[in-house]
């Protein structure tokens, strides 16, 4: 049933990367429980604008849980308290009248705050640039059915490839590690015959780049898996480790 609720928001405000930033309190009143979390923020922003204040900057684009552009930490939970849900797909019916919500940006050394709730996730792009691809130029690909791929392998690759690159795994990890993200890409490509020729090079290069970018180290806390909006499993991290060891100890990759 649709209801309206009033909630109090403590939102992180920070003008630029250099600024110190801090929490500001504002009230969201008359919020329909059918609203998404971001629609609630839209309503707050409309009001702030009309009150002559600056609206809260936050990222979003598709608003259907697939582009990975949205994300903030709500009461200590990246993308909020619902399982397997991005912030844009989180609905206000999961909150109660009178709730007080602390909203913070994703935090990690590798993710600088750009403004308010917006962070710079370009290190994730750099990780893909370090080898998250198959080196095939356009043209010259063999017929798509020339290499059969067992269904369960294709399914596993798809499970890993479902990553939306939102960075919630990094935000959720107590160590701000990017292992789930990196392992999802390494797994996706290492599972498929098309990705195998470069698997060793890819694993070494992506892992070393991950370290250089300032992400933390995995301690198998499993928070990433628990928060991932696409429920990507840490089985992929184990696979990445195997790929890394294979690359380090049993391949020509230096």
């Amino acid at each position: 049933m649709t209801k309206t609720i009033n909630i109090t928001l403590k939102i992180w405000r920070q003008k630029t990367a250099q600024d110190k930033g801090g929490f500001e309190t504002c009230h969201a009143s008359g919020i329909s429980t059918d609203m998404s979390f971001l629609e609630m923020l839209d309503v707050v922003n409309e009001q702030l604008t009309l009150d002559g204040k600056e609206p809260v900057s936050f990222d979003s684009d598709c608003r259907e849980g697939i582009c990975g552009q949205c994300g903030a930490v709500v009461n200590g939970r990246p993308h909020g308290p619902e399982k397997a849900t991005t912030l844009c797909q989180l609905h206000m019916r999961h909150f109660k009248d009178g709730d007080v919500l602390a909203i913070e940006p994703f935090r990690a050394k590798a993710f600088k705050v750009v403004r308010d709730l917006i962070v710079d996730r370009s290190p994730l792009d750099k990780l893909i640039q370090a080898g998250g691809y198959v080196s095939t130029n356009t043209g010259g690909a063999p017929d798509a059915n020339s290499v059969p791929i067992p269904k369960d392998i294709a399914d596993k690759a798809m499970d890993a490839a479902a990553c939306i690159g939102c960075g919630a795994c990094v935000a959720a990890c107590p160590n701000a590690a990017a292992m789930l993200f990196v392992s999802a890409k390494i797994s996706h490509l290492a599972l498929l015959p098309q990705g195998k020729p470069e698997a060793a090079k890819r694993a070494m290069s992506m892992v070393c780049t991950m370290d250089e970018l300032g992400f933390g180290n995995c301690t198998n806390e499993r928070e990433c898996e628990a928060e991932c909006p696409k429920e990507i499993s840490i089985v992929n991290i184990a696979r990445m480790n195997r790929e890394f060891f294979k690359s380090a100890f049993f391949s020509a990759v230096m």
Partner: protein
Amino acid sequence: MNWLVKTLGSSIGKKLLMALTGLSFCGFLAGHLAGNLFIYGGRDAFNAYAEHLQSLRPLLTLAEAGLVLFALIHVMTGLLLFYQNWTARPDRYAVNKTAGGRTIGSATMPYTGVILLLFIIFHLFHFTFVDKTNQTIFDIVLISFQNPLYVTLYIVVMLIAAIHVSHGFWSAFQTVGLNHPKYMPLIQGLSLAFSIVVAAGFGFIPVYMSLMA
């Protein structure tokens, strides 16, 4: 050899060091516990066991050196990881909440680890580097555990060891890449079982000894 340094210096490499040394410690714990069971056989049995161990001296020295080396690696790498992980998030969250991934074990590894380190040093001075010309090891242990403070200390530390191992054991498998949906539940079960065995096995010895006296 440059590649080896690079490999072991990487985040996954460091994890590999932790896992291998940690797992060896688990092996050591198991062996140590098995040996300690001789204590239930009484003074002679236990002293005979200790003597037998000593008679294997060259081997024992090797094992001890190995343990020290592994301990150095485990501790140094663990502390390095702890430091790096702390600095990977310079601005911390105002509100922290778990999504259900963490356990007491996983969340406290560095702290339980440091306590274990301190304990191990204490433990070595307590039972190993003591003058055994006039007393047997059995007597040293027996007298020690007359003191309820030692009994409590040992029990508490063994619980802490169990907590460390409850995460460490399965985590080491995950780290070396052994995570398969079919077997992972088993490994996690073993992890729990092993930590209970450690806590109960080691923990009961001080109790038993204090009762015996």
